[in-house]
């Protein structure tokens, strides 16, 4: 059994050491004989055992005795552990590639490739009073009337619903990536403003009214808002300047914004969005599946390729 374990380990260390490369070849010879149901005749096990026991004998006779006596058992244990850890390593790599986290979609556990957990950070909704852990699987899109929000490429196969907040860092981080994705894939795209921060709550009404007035101008305005400083977009007068610069009928928009019906609609929509069990922004639904936090671009791209097993 030690030959399998050694082959795995020596194949890796052999990249850096010619001695280990030779041993890896021997280990492979042994593995191959085992696989083809023949006894391992190259004395590889004894060679490895001899090396390890000799090394240990120089440090602790007792430890060397134990290793010498229980070598086969220890080999088996290590093989099982290696196989288990290999499985988890491969799974972690897979998860990291497809979801941006070693632990799976939206999981915040430690990931060696993303030690700071940047791919899962969210602007939180302060729902710490929740009686159960917040999970991506609990987040559902169905309560949101997607058709009421600004949408482009309507009717195509893939659907992306971006729920974000204008003044939230992580939304601002992922916004340009989603724009790039929509440009490349032509997927149906809906933007939903969900104000996590109170200073930009007023922008929901602006977004609603501008989109109602001219959807093309809305997309341009939306891009400009995300490109602006957070401190600037907290000021309504700055937003109005932006509207003017982008050829939006400011007067008409302001009338709409001040209309009580708009406030009512925005509030209703806000509550509908909350009922998705959203716990932070950005939350991006790809064909109904929620990706919470700013992910690398490849994750978004892969989310539209429907071959993920889990």
């Amino acid at each position, binding site marked *: 059994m030690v030959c399998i374990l050694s082959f795995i380990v020596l194949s890796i260390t052999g990249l850096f050491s010619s001695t280990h490369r030779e041993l890896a070849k021997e280990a492979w010879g042994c593995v191959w004989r085992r696989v083809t149901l023949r006894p391992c005749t190259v*004395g590889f096990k*004894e060679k490895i055992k*001899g090396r390890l*026991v000799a090394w240990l004998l120089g440090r602790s006779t007792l430890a060397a005795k134990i290793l010498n006596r229980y070598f086969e058992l220890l080999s088996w244990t290590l093989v099982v552990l290696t196989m288990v850890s290999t499985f988890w390593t491969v799974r972690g790599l897979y998860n990291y590639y497809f979801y941006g986290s070693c632990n799976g979609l939206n999981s915040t556990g430690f990931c060696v490739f993303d030690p700071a957990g940047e791919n899962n950070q969210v602007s939180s909704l302060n729902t710490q009073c929740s009686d159960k852990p917040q999970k991506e699987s609990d987040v559902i899109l169905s309560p949101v009337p997607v058709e009421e929000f600004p949408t482009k490429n309507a009717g195509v196969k893939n659907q992306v619903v971006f729920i974000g907040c204008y003044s939230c860092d992580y939304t601002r981080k992922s916004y340009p990536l989603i724009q790039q994705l929509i440009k490349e894939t032509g997927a149906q795209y809906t933007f939903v403003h969900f104000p996590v921060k109170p200073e930009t709550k007023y922008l929901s009404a602006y977004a609603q009214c501008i989109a109602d007035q001219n959807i093309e101008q809305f997309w341009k305005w939306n891009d400009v808002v995300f490109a602006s400083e957070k401190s600037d977009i907290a000021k309504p007068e700055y937003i109005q300047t932006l509207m003017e610069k982008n050829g939006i009928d400011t007067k008409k928009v302001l009338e709409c914004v001040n209309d009580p019906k708009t406030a009512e609609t925005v509030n209703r929509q806000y509550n509908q969005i909350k009922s998705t069990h959203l716990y932070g922004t950005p939350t991006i639904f790809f064909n109904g599946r929620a990706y919470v936090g700013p992910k690398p671009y490849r994750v978004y791209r892969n989310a539209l390729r429907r071959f993920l097993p889990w």
Partner: protein
Amino acid sequence: MTPSHNEAFNAHAIHEFSFWFMDLQKLRNDFPLLASPSNKPVMYFDNACMSLKPRAVINAMNQYYEQFPACGGPGRSGHALGARVREAVDQSRQTIARAIGAQHPNEIIFTRNTTESINLVARSFRWNAGDVVLTTDKEHNSNLIPWLNTRRLSNIRHAVIPSLPDNTFDLSAFEQLLKLGSVRLVSVGLVSNLDGVRVPIAEIIKRAHAAGAMVMVDAAQAMLHSPLNVQALGVDFLAFSGHKMLGPTGTGVLYGKRELLENLEPFLLGGDTVSATTYTDFQLLDVPERFEAGLQDYAGIIGLGAAMEYLQSIGWPFIESQDQQMNRIITEGIAHLKGVHMIGPADPALRGGIVAFTIKGMDHHQVAVMLEQMNAILVRSGQHCVHSWFGSRGIPGSVRASVAFYNTVDEAEQFVQAMEKITTLL
């Protein structure tokens, strides 16, 4: 005292003198592996497989490549460089002939190794159906397989002389087999690579000849450790390798009595073996050229001659004394250790330069690896090409430490200490 007696006396005195004042460290400096500070220090106890090479051998070979790297066979290049090659090869042949007491240098055939030498006899001998070849029960594969193959090809019979329980040669069993008749050849290893036991070769030859059989001696393990005189012993054929006696790899020798060699039918023919050819026939050269087909390993042959000269310059008394001393230290140091079982007779004096053993509960390969890891002690582990002996006894293999004259007391003691440590694991 006659002049010749005087010379003999002086030679003996010089030998004795050199023995007592032999500077081992100076001698070790002749071996680049042991002397060069750039080499990782090792304690080399695998001399039964391959001896180390002194600088004299390396220099001799280099001299060929640097000063006269030309063709040297009969009928080949007649220019000055070719003449130097022929001269150097002839000199090696003479050196070797002299060293083993051959009657004439032409009784020396250069081969690649002992294996090839034995195969040459096995394949070239004019066998009669029913001829019997005797070997011992612990022959190296090189002195077993050629006869098994000849049995298959030439309808001869092969019989095995069983050893005594302590692995020494059983003369009475040998005598019994000789009495069966039809024994044409007795082929025995002079010193066993399994356990270092030396067969009573003089007695074997005497009895074989009395029974009308010839004797082939596999001296691969003997040449580094003791002198040999084929004429004095009456050896018919003798085979040995260069690489086990300080010489280059890929070199070997077959000695044969001239009349016997002339009666062999060469099986390997080609360039340098014939004086003339037509489209229908060929004329063989004399012995030994007829057996040395194709371009030879001139550098190797020259190196082999240099190795023989170097060995003789050391002197056999010193060499034999070193072997016995090392073997005694190791044997006395490990024989009593827990789990250790010595192969061969208990008396180290009967085992030349070899200490072979097994450890109950520990694999032989593991022990060899541990010796290397712990103390850079290099030994051989396995069945040492004597599968038949191990297989018949159900022993998976052994650890074999084989010494040479350049090993030191300190090395032997370190070997014992390492073994003491290893056996604490049991």
